């Protein structure tokens, strides 16, 4: 999100997104996805605008947004790295991979680097269970991932 996007602009854009998607049956998740795609996270100002359009309380929208792992209340780093922690990947060294990636990137799982360069998150299954350990750097999926490969993709 550009730093100069004002609260009013966020609210106006979020309102437009919400109004466009309201005709759907069960519009809230599509709205939250669209807002996050636009701003990189779901800003507080957007929650108010969405609640207003859907005629529900802000608490209800917040409750939904905070339930799901995908929706962020704060912007992520410039690159998001996800490392799978599930059983199939654990069987081929996912725990070691995550520790190595933490060391290589200098950031703990679940956190964003201070300089905003990278966010590292655990993920529970990318569906690459026959070629683990699996990871994702930005949009790019990696099978049989190593910390070196991941660090190289981030750079």
């Amino acid at each position, binding site marked *: 999100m550009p730093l100069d996007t004002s609260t009013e602009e966020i609210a106006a854009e979020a309102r437009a997104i919400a109004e466009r998607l309201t005709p759907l*049956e069960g519009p809230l*998740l599509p709205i939250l*996805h669209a807002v996050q795609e636009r701003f990189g996270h779901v800003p507080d100002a957007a929650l108010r605008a969405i609640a207003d359009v859907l005629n529900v309380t802000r608490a209800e929208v917040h409750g*939904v947004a905070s*339930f799901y792992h*995908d929706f962020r209340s704060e912007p992520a780093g410039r690159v998001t790295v996800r490392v799978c922690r*599930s*059983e199939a990947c654990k*069987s081929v060294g996912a725990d070691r991979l995550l520790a190595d990636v933490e060391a290589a990137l200098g950031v703990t799982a679940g956190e964003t680097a201070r300089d905003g360069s990278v966010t590292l998150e655990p993920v529970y299954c990318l569906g690459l269970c*026959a070629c683990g350990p699996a990871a994702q750097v930005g949009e790019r999926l990696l099978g049989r991932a190593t910390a070196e490969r991941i660090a190289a993709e981030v750079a």
Partner: protein
Amino acid sequence: MIRVFLSRDAAAKALGAEAVAAALAEAGVTPVRVGSRGMVWLEPLMEIELGGVRHAFGPVSPNDVPTLLADPSGHPKALGPTEEIPFLAAQQRLTFARCGRIDPLSLADYEAEGGLAGLRRALAMSAEGIVGEVKASGLRGRGGAGFPTGIKWDTVRTAPGERKYIVCNADEGDSGTFADRMLMEGDPFSLIEGMVIAGLGTGATQGYVYLRSEYPDAIEVMSEAIRLARDAGVLGPSVLGSGRAFDMEVRVGAGAYVCGEETSLLNSLEGKRGVVRAKPPLPALEGFLGRPTVVNNVLSLATVPAIFEKGAEHYAAFGLGRSRGTIPVQIAGNVKHGGLFETAFGMPLGRLVNEIGGGTASGRPVKAVQVGGPLGAYFAPHQFDTPFGYEEFDGQGGLIGHAGIVVFDDSVDMAEMARFAFEFCAIESCGKCTPCRIGAVRGVEVMEQVIAGDASRIDLLTDLCETMKDGSLCALGGFTPYPVLSALKHFPDDFFPVREVAE
């Protein structure tokens, strides 16, 4: 002009298929991008048509491309005719018959390989006849619960309601499973056709595919396939000109494992927190927006076209006991030949692990396999003669779930896996019921004490598991005891190392 095929499956891409595609483009070759054949250890898998027969090459790196194009048959990566590769030749593919063979976004290819034949047949049948055909096939829910699909459809068919829904559960969050993803990326029209037939059988006119956000490739292919199907009149106000309406769309999940549970999925689809609903009412009677709703797994729905194309009897002729038809087994984890292996129910677990899967990738002995995702039981090698079937696995204190098998070698610490089962449950619990919400957190604590050497906590552990099993609203809390207790039962040495040293 030679015909070249290259997988566009997410696993193939994760192993470098796009770099191979770029090398092919440089050589002036445009490959047909197909789904995966399911032999993940050979990805990126490339196929070249030689004398009208597709020959496989893999795993292909970009450097292989020039030499492969110059002299395919003599190449060191040559694997011979694709369908003669033992892993493929030993399968009975009904649900995945087309996957890896066709361009997933070519409706013409789909029809050329039997697609839409089932739908055409269904259009000439009554709703009752359609449901009867599904019942006769013996098809049971492939998401894990194994509930007879035809009975579920019949409940929706006879339920009063102006508007009914077909909801496809494509929230495939179980570790070790990727069949839904592979199918949606490799043969999306089969899912669309299955959902249309479900609509005709139940009177539903709208479908939703609730697809997890972790599957961007599947979302893209599925959405595009729906658009193409609508353009071709397979979807819309008059399905194939019949005057019967059915349309559908993709809805993207938001990273909540529990939304794979059907009532939680419905809440999520409605735009609510993905918390579980108490049953009754059944979703078949009061589902999406309180209306009659079929909720079926991807594989259940995608198998329906084959049942209608070949007939219920043909499908039911495969299988074992009350597990009829075929099951796409996903062989994953620390395994040499990982991938998708569709076979009639009944194959012993050990054969899938050791013969088909080739044992561990690390070359070390197999210590345990977890079947059915993070909520499935761990099996020890002494149980490997268990035939793959719903009742047979239940008899061994396990479940087949979504038919994923995760293989572990002897370096795995089963106490840590038991601890992780609770940790996962704690992270993903929706919070609605106490046994799951609190029990999972207490479970992590108790397992940490056990791992630290306090064997006296085992009684509390089993007691906690009993409470979660009996008291949880859904399978997340209710089945977390499966991996925990099976690990404890079959691998007690991993739980008491400190005590053994003391003795």
